[in-house]
């Protein structure tokens, strides 16, 4: 390797340390360190990956909900559409697609697609898969995200999807390799639910060879894959190494060549390792501090804004480390519908005098607020940031009481609206921006802690907008509105995980969804 690619690391070094904070916010840690793609791809070889956790529910794509399930399932299965490395919609198993009217879509299937058992993909399989997705009997968490009414075959290679109501987000959902997965009808119907969790028969670039529970998952490159000559790799071994220090050590000793890690403070450690390329994932994790505006001190907008103005976001971001955090809205910066707040935004600039004045206007000199947050070790850096925030808030007379509980009990508390003043959760990339907002603000949901008809009107308008450019604008406006009203604070947005790989791995790029390691284009130097 003689060519020196221009990496984010160089960019930062050039930027100089004083500008670092601004730079981070500006370049948003896009971080997809230009992958070494020089040279002609070579087929063959075994890539070993350090795996942080095993699938929990298994390989049934339409049921796979956990990250640990999705990252493996995404190697086996594909949808009618796909996402490129920037998160844009691209053809998948459908070579072309068109919208006929507001509730009708047509998809023409690609030729020469086969399942891993060798059978040919037909319109029957597509109809079966999408009907299965909508079937309440399989208890898919995704069913309610799709508005599919009927799926029919127009001819031997074209299917028509009719929706019950217009759904501008349909393409985004069909591009998800898990919920939008196309399964073989014959194969799926001849297996029990539990068998579907242990085996697979997708159309994707890799097929399951063996799952040794607690040790490793072995995949083999699918020779009959439609996008020839991909995949280049013969074998992919996911070796389970739950401990992050051990996992990074295994990259150093070359027992694995690719891994992801959650604690972004490890980036600096990885950087000093020679022969390793590192990258922060995309900034898809907005840290959400949702406020209970129905009762208690936060029902007063002035108190909420005082809270917001008391925070020094730039300092918080600095503590999180190099390039792995930035300003953010409720929709994360690197969602196709998200954007990054400007540094000039008064809501994102610390102003303690104004915060005190607002509190005074609200008739309070001191306020005590309870914040429920996850205690799991994965949230270590965030908890440090919260402690720092607590100190900043105390300067204006706000006492923040942290109530740390296991993540597993944070989720039901969010869903049931079961908390006093505030609760913290972090986002992952959602298929459609409406999901971020529905989680917190859906009208009539027990999770919703606001009463604002204007907000609900905006949400409904954005959800049903058919023109994508207008839709993007509407979601930007919504995010700004929520920030201005201080319904939900985003102290910072961050990458979900970092990735590192050996210089022997070529053609690899971190995925825009931050959910899977996209191995289709990867190859190993001989």
């Amino acid at each position: 390797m003689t060519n020196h690619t221009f990496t984010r690391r160089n960019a930062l070094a050039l930027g100089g340390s004083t500008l670092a904070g601004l730079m981070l916010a500006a370049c948003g840690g896009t971080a997809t360190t230009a992958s070494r793609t020089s040279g002609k791809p070579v087929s063959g070889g075994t890539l070993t990956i350090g795996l942080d956790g095993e699938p929990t529910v298994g390989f049934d794509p339409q049921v796979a909900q956990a990250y640990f399930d999705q990252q493996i399932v995404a190697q086996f299965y594909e949808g009618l559409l796909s996402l490129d490395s920037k998160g844009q919609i691209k053809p998948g198993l459908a070579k072309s697609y068109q919208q006929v009217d507001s509730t009708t879509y047509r998809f023409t299937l690609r030729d020469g697609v086969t399942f891993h058992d060798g059978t040919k993909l037909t319109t029957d399989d597509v109809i079966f898969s999408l009907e299965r997705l909508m079937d309440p009997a399989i208890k898919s968490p995704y069913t309610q995200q799709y508005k599919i009414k009927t799926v029919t075959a127009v001819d031997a290679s074209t299917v028509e999807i009719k929706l019950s109501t217009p759904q501008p987000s349909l393409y985004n959902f069909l591009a998800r390799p898990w919920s939008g997965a196309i399964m073989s009808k014959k194969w799926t119907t001849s297996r029990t639910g539990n068998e579907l969790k242990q085996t697979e028969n997708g159309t994707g670039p890799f097929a399951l060879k063996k799952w040794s529970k607690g040790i490793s998952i072995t995949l083999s490159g699918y020779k009959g894959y439609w996008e020839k000559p991909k995949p280049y790799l013969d074998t992919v071994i996911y070796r389970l190494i739950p401990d992050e220090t051990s996992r990074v050590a295994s990259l150093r000793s070359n027992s694995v060549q690719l891994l992801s890690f959650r604690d972004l403070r490890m980036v600096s450690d990885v950087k000093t390792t020679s022969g390793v390329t590192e990258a922060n994932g995309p900034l898809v994790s907005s840290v959400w501090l949702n406020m209970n505006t129905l009762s208690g001190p936060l029902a007063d907008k002035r108190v909420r804004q005082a809270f917001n103005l008391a925070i020094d976001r730039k300092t918080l971001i600095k503590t999180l480390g190099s390039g792995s955090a930035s300003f953010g809205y409720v929709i994360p910066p690197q969602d196709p519908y998200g954007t990054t707040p400007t540094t000039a935004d008064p809501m994102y600039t610390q102003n303690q005098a104004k915060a005190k004045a607002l509190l005074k206007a609200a008739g309070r000199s001191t306020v005590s607020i309870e914040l429920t947050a996850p205690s799991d070790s994965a949230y270590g850096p965030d908890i440090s940031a919260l402690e720092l925030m607590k100190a900043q808030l105390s300067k204006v007379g706000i006492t923040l009481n942290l109530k740390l509980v296991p993540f597993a009990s944070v989720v039901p508390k969010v869903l049931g609206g079961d908390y006093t003043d505030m609760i913290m959760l972090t986002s992952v990339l959602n298929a459609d921006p409406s999901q971020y907002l529905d989680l917190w603000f859906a009208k009539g949901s027990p999770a919703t802690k606001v009463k604002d008809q204007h907000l609900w009107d905006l949400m409904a308008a954005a959800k049903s907008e058919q023109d994508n450019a207008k839709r993007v604008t509407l979601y930007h406006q919504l995010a700004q509105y929520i920030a201005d009203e201080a319904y939900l604070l985003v102290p910072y947005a961050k990458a979900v995980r970092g990735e590192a790989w050996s210089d022997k791995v070529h053609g690899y790029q971190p995925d825009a969804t931050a959910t899977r390691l996209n191995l289709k284009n990867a190859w190993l130097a001989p």
Partner: protein
Amino acid sequence: MLRYLSIRLVRSLAVVLCLSAIVFALAHLVPGDPAALIAGENSTPQLRAQITHQLGLDQPVWSQYLSWIGHAVRGDLGSSLLDGQSVGAQVATRLPVSLELAVYAAVVAVLWGIPAGIWSAMHQGHAKDRVVNSAAFMGLAVPPFVVGTVMVLLVSTLAPAWPLFSFVPFSQDPLLNLQVLLLPAIALGIPFGATLCRYMRAAVLDVEGQDFMRTAAAKGAGRRRLMLRHALRNALVPVVTAGGLQLGVLVGGTVIIEQVFALPGLGSLIVNSITQHDFTVIQGAILALGASYVLINLVTDLVYPLIDPRIRTTGARRDG
């Protein structure tokens, strides 16, 4: 002897039964809703209710317990709430790894702890004794996971060829298996050996002052014969007690070491199932862990009569 054996067996069974009830209660006390985890953040309450019902988690806890224990006594530990895999099968593949690691660590511990203890007792008060003592204290003070992590970091840079994370079952490749487990066994064997060393030293010193030792010495037994034939056998009873207890603790205490060295043992199964609220797996795995602890203690109890003939003839309790 038969009476001794049967009393021990009945007691052990009672302990396991009590344990099962405690484990069940604990698993259900852990906050969090498996249905919410299975169905996800954006799921509807209806879907969650449906999943809860299907898992039987809407039944009263006591009725869930009776149904579970009913199946458990027939050897059926149920299946995972999440992926539907048989709990029995998972435990059956994981338990041997933890047991092997514990035994391996015990071997390491015995290899250095016992000789060091005897040697130290034979040089009581001398510099050699003090060196061994400080070494033992160091071994007790540094937690195994620290030793483990340091070993991982050192080995991965200094000897990258060493198979750090390439676990294979013993039956598949015994040599590689023993190689992979060597470092974790040492990490666990250091504090275990230190405990043995301390007990051994105290016990030998205790025995050395006894009348029969003086008699044996008066009869002209050499120092080596005195130590090996007379002192050691008598000193062994408390050491076996301590060793047995420690070994039991080790089977469950390998959790962190399993994480550090990425070993597919029972500990990592328990950690995973707790974070995932997989009740049936938690219950099955902890029950297996408890049962093996009880079994190890039972075996220890049965070893006493072999070491000390007085227990064989009277059935006297070791502590009474």
